[in-house]
């Protein structure tokens, strides 16, 4: 079936981006279940990763050759064992890591090899939610959500505040607006972090293991917020996670990474229930 062929083509032969786009067009035309995302004819991917490589300290090669396209409004869940490079890939997308080689295009615009000033502008379009939340502990929840808007987007304080309240309410923390991070639980902190990222209205939201540092009972709240965002938020999301339930229910597409390359990708139920690669089978087997 075509899904298999595409997976194979993308990862082994490393097709140029146009071919991947073509694949999307075909997927759309033939209504093929590569992703639950509804492709639009002629649409370009919002994130286009080509031959991405990342080497740390000149020896540890974390990303060997990553190719991945993410379309507007798509929810892509990236799975993989630790050390597979999924977090590094995510951090390369908003240039927290500088790619060693390869290209990353956001809305057809190259983002690698830019000056630090340009990088700042690029990052406005890329929201990030961290495993450790990384809220600013000296600011209240509301101020955390406001600071990017006022300092970077140069919004007025009133405007930013209104947006902050709106986003905090959206994550169910309207009543915690004036609390400082130390007064919030981990789950609440992570929801504030999500509100902070969403308030910037980025083109793409990147989630780097958003629930891994949370107590199990707090994971559900955060996943709930992410699920709502994915289903009703009209947001493009790339989620690195170990939450298989979330991947299966919410993901438009699941990407399995291993050894610095994308090994397999496709509809969540395809990847989970009928994995094609041995490594995928092995990984899924180890957690089921």
């Amino acid at each position, binding site marked *: 079936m075509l899904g298999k062929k595409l997976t194979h083509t993308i990862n082994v032969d490393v097709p140029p981006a146009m071919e991947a786009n073509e694949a999307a067009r075909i997927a759309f035309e033939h209504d093929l279940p590569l992703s639950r995302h509804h492709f639009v004819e002629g649409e370009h991917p919002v994130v286009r990763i080509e031959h991405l490589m990342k080497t740390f300290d000149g020896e540890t090669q974390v990303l060997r050759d990553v190719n991945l396209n993410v379309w507007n409004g798509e929810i892509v869940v990236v799975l993989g*064992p*630790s*050390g597979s490079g999924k*977090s590094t890939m995510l951090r390369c997308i*908003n240039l*927290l890591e500088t790619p060693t080689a390869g290209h990353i295009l956001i809305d057809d615009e190259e983002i690698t090899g830019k000056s*630090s*000033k340009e990088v*700042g*502008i690029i*990052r*406005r379009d*890329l*929201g*990030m939610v*961290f*495993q*450790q*939340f*990384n*809220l*600013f*502990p*000296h600011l209240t929840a509301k101020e955390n959500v406001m*600071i*990017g808007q006022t*300092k*970077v987007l140069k919004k007025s304080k009133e405007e930013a505040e209104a947006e902050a309240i709106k986003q905090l309410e959206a994550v169910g923390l309207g009543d915690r607006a004036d609390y*400082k*991070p*130390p*007064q*919030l*639980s*981990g789950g609440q*902190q992570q929801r504030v*972090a999500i509100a*902070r*990222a969403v308030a*910037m209205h980025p083109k793409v939201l990147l989630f780097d*293991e958003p629930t*891994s*540092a*949370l*107590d*199990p*009972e707090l*994971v559900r709240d955060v996943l709930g917020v992410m699920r709502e965002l994915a289903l009703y938020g009209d947001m493009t999301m790339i989620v690195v996670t*170990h*939450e*298989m*339930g979330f991947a299966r229910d919410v993901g438009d597409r699941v990407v399995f990474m291993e050894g610095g390359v994308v090994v397999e990708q496709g509809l969540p139920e395809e990847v989970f229930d009928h994995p094609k690669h041995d490594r995928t089978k092995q990984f899924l087997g*180890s*957690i*089921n």
Partner: protein
Amino acid sequence: MRNNRRDKSKGLLSALAMLMLACALLVPTTALALTTNKATARPNEDGGSGVIGGLDTRLTWEGTVEAGEEVSAVTLTLPDDGTFDDSSTKITVLEGLSRASVEGEAVASGSKLEVTFSEPITEGYLLRLEVEGMRFPSEGGDVVVGGTYVNQDGEQQLADSKPIATIANTPLQALVASLDEAAWVQVWNSNPFLGMFFKPQLLVTAFATLVPGWLLCLLIVVIAYPFAIVLGLIFALMKISKNRLLRLIAIVYVNVLRGTPLFLQIYIMFFGLPMMNINIDNNVLGVIVIAINASAYLAEIFRAGIQSIPQGQYEAASSLGMNYFQTMFDIILPQTIRRVIPTVTSDFITSYKDTSLLSSVGVMELMMFAKNLTSVSGNMTPYVAAAIFYLIVTLPLIKAVGYVEERIAHSERGGGPRPKGKTAKTSAAEAGVKLSELAVHAEALDDEHAYAPTLTPSFASEV
């Protein structure tokens, strides 16, 4: 004490010599004035050089007998509130350098002291009266010693002395005087240690005397410190800058200043700058030296503080699109300041104490006053008083540092995951649901994240 110094000896031998001289020089002359040479008073300020009214002191009056005179009595007069009561007078008569002895009797009554001589004092003789235990008027001011004398022609007016500056007897001086009298003070002071380090009278005097020095210390450090903070911040940012030259400058600055004694830095600035014809007021120069010295330490404190902020804070700020200055001034530095407040306060305490070194170059700060008072009084108590002045500032600050540290430790728990430990309490049912996910957690966390929380053993075994 002062009473003990009263010298009641009259000197029979000198009286005899005087008699012989008087006989030899007995020549009738016309009446001229007994000239007042001087009138001085011994300082009676504890550890100071002032003459305080209303307290025992010694008046020294000198006059020269003019040609043809024979002085048989002298009466000294003080302004009304002055008193010679309970005083003792030593009479010395000199011709040139040799000393004559004259029998004399001094009778004190209130502000008058009448001295009569057994033999008239003749021409060319110097008459010195040392009146121990007299008191000037307690309101202070310039006191003129006047009076009369008696020669062969009868009573004559004595020329007024030059005014003696006296200090009003304040409650403080009255307190010191009363301590002087108090029995317990005498017992206390008879202990060599207590008397040398904690002499009550001197402690009281020192507290009053040291205040200007203490204020100067505070002024120097309070003015210097904001400059030190700004300088320190600049050098801290330079030291973590990506620019090699800036880094090098900051490293040299910080290491040279931290690697040499402040004492040396003070000497170089205070003696070096004038040699280059750069003359700055001592107090201002003191501020500059303290500011520069403190800035080097603060630079290191700030650098460490900035670098203690987790990388995640930079990443979060970057991912919002904030630039270097926004990240620094809106995110990193506000957190750094909270963290370094205790260390900076400690450094402030050090700088405050370091102002004492400025006494070595003549800045009139606390130590300088204490040193002066000690050299005048020959007692260590002023240093103890200075120590108390230092402690007045440092002890509350030390206390505050402890309090702030506690507060910070309390609030620092935010910004990252809260401490774990509740994991094991998760109910079995809930645990069952999450079991598969947790297995992945455990695997991922163990390998990938040094910062990751660990599962409690009981739970891990279930997995």
